[in-house]
């Protein structure tokens, strides 16, 4: 416990918050077992977070929700997450694509043991499954992650999907897990109205950029919590998304922050995105592409006809890696969309492709996360939460694939520290 407390970040208010007390309230059975069963993991957790917070001395720093920290204090990082999050847009986006069904569930139902199976297969059938809106629950998720040795979480929630930046700081203070918040814009269908398709155009870029600059420089929504990363979601890649991408690229160029570009519809638009990023002065070595397919992506009917069409595939990833960008892979919890014909083929094929990339020498350009994007993914409510990185990610790479300790340290620690630390 002392070690955990010592590891708490030196953010505003860290000293006076009774963090240990909060932890005790949040801790449940699972946490106690983690503590009991993994003494090594607990002490490692403290180590992962560094001996104590404090101002960085080498000029580079990662901006966390509790203030700047030295790169060495990032520790083992999950680089594709959401903490306080509302993913309701996913339901709106996909509702029209769902095949008719008679599953016993209504959109207003709360997630519970009786419907968690239905929602795992079809996460958009109830709003509650797509939200991470309970601060105490999210604090516990972060605490469980820290218990296993997790040092930092990169939260890719932005305006339109983020539920409260102040909560991020409280969660970080209470758990000792570093959280880096993002600024930028989700795909156009998941944004506040003022940044929707209607506001696009060359005049728009300025407004988008001003928003990102404010969140980086002053803080998010008047909380003083500053963004330490930039995000852009691409779905249709229409004018509004292009504006946001250009603004994000300029913000990265001028601030030195890294950014994540999420490819909602696969890697088809990655080339155009990289061209725009370069045009706007972003350093491609500071750009992470998320959701890059690591398998071929045949449609469901075609895959049923010939399942060999579905297989590991590194081509899309290599086209991105060749430009110096990084990719993030998610050891994701089950958030199925079966009724939208997104078929479940397990995680063996993308992991096989990931291992192939590591073997071919790309470990310095790979980061990982769990992509938690709703209650259904959380450890307390149907999934394994951020802990899936430890339950699945590390064991499958280390034990099943035999990935070297060096590559694992790059992927889990050094790459995140480098990417999250700005000059």
């Amino acid at each position, binding site marked *: 416990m002392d070690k955990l407390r010592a590891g708490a970040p030196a953010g505003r208010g860290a000293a006076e918050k009774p963090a240990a007390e909060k932890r005790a309230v949040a801790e449940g059975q699972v946490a106690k077992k983690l503590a009991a069963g993994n003494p090594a993991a607990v002490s490692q957790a403290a180590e992962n977070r560094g001996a104590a917070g404090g101002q960085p001395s080498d000029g580079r720093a990662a901006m966390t929700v509790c203030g700047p920290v030295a790169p060495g204090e990032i520790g083992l990082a999950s680089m594709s997450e959401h903490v306080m999050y509302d993913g309701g847009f996913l339901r709106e986006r996909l509702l029209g694509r769902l095949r008719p069904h008679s599953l016993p569930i209504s959109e207003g139902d709360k997630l519970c043991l009786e419907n968690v199976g239905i929602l795992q297969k079809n996460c958009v059938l109830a709003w509650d499954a797509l939200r991470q809106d309970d601060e105490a629950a999210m604090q516990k998720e972060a605490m469980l992650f820290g218990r296993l040795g997790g040092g930092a979480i990169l939260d890719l929630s932005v305006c339109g999907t983020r539920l409260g930046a102040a909560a991020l700081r409280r969660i970080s203070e209470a758990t000792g897990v570093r959280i880096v918040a993002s600024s930028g814009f989700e795909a156009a269908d998941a944004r506040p109205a003022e940044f929707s398709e209607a506001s696009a155009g060359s005049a728009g870029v300025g407004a988008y950029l001003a928003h990102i600059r404010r969140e980086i420089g002053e803080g998010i929504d008047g909380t003083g919590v500053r963004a330490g990363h930039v995000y852009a979601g691409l779905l249709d890649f229409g004018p509004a998304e292009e504006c946001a991408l250009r603004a994000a690229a300029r913000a990265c160029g001028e601030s030195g922050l890294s950014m994540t570009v999420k490819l909602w519809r696969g890697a088809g638009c990655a080339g155009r995105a990289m061209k725009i990023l370069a045009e706007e002065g972003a350093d491609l070595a500071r750009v992470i592409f998320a959701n890059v397919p690591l398998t071929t992506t045949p449609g469901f009917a075609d895959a049923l006809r010939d399942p060999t069409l579905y297989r590991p595939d590194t081509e899309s990833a290599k086209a991105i890696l060749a430009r110096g960008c990084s990719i993030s892979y998610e050891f994701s919890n089950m958030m199925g969309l079966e009724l939208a014909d997104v078929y479940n083929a397990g995680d*063996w094929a993308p992991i096989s492709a990931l291992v192939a990339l590591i073997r071919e020498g790309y470990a310095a350009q790979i980061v990982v996360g769990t992509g938690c994007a709703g209650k259904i993914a959380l450890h307390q409510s149907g999934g394994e939460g951020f802990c899936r990185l430890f339950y699945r990610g590390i064991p499958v790479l280390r034990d099943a694939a035999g990935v070297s300790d060096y590559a694992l340290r790059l992927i889990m620690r050094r790459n995140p520290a480098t990417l999250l630390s700005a000059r």
Partner: protein
Amino acid sequence: MQNETGRAGKTVMTALGPIAPEELGFTSMHEHVMFQGAVLARRMREMIPAGHGLPIDADDKVSLENVGLLLNNSIMAWDALVQDDEDVMAGEVQDFKDAGGGAIVEVSVPGIQLATAPMRNISRRTGVHIVVSTGFYTWDSWPEEFRGLGVREYKRHMEGEIRHGVQGTDIRPGSLKIALEDLNEMEENALRAAAQLCGETGLPLTIHPCLKPGADQIQVIRILREEGVDLGRVVFAHTPVVSRPGLFRDLIDNPGLVKVTTELALRIMDEGANCSIEFENPLGFEMMGRYNLGDLWKTSGICKIIEAGYSGQLVLGNDCCGRTMLRRGGALGYLRLMGYGLTTLRDVAGVPESAIRRITVENPARILAH
């Protein structure tokens, strides 16, 4: 084989007594209602690596808080491997009814059998016909009293249940079930006894196949023929249509090893027997180095069997065998068949309605009628 007229006078024995085969409706041919999976757990728990570090104890109850872990590592808690609550199971069977289900064949037999008495209540409460089974699960699961007996003794036990009722109840079985682990002498004796009863009573015989070399379905068919069984009365459960390595590490560099392989299924059906394939809710074994393949390949295999013209010998089920496979325990329960399986076959793969009806209504009626 049997056409509508050939079925005249035949009935299906359900937990509530005999009914006409036409009354069955949509039928799941391989299910467990009340179930005890301790034997499976004992077998598999030895394979759990020491120091896995997952925060779950063997005695934990399935809850919202641990179900995510249990879905990926099913054998970590005993509670995940039983279906022991009559009210819960009535709810699950009601789900099946609400989705258009008519009948369930309950294939739990000594070794995994928990309780037969609730079948009548559950059937009354839900209106779903439940066909219970007599027979034996794999030898390692048997109570001591069944070990090392001869054909005659196994036959006498099953005959008694057929005549008087299963597990000391007066609920008579409408199905025979034999599971094979090693096809050792006692399993062979039980198999031969069930085969003889299949011939004498006309009850259908479901066989859970042995996975060890040299005792596969084709070898079992040889034994059944020796006993004079009409193979049209036999259902081979868990018919494999996918081949793949068991461990993830053997797959990583050889993704082509995951394949749809329908050869064995078609060979079984060419011999005249029926095949059951189950849209199982997932059971995970990640911490043992295994991996979840998802449903794509199996569903594709089912499509290929139908395309090859074998829909007249195919039946389906969910094979729910544990709390984490239930709708009330983190999965879809008996709804997997309708909520995923049939909608996929019909709406995505374009399987004609006539074939779906054959597989889910006509074949079960033919097989269960005696």
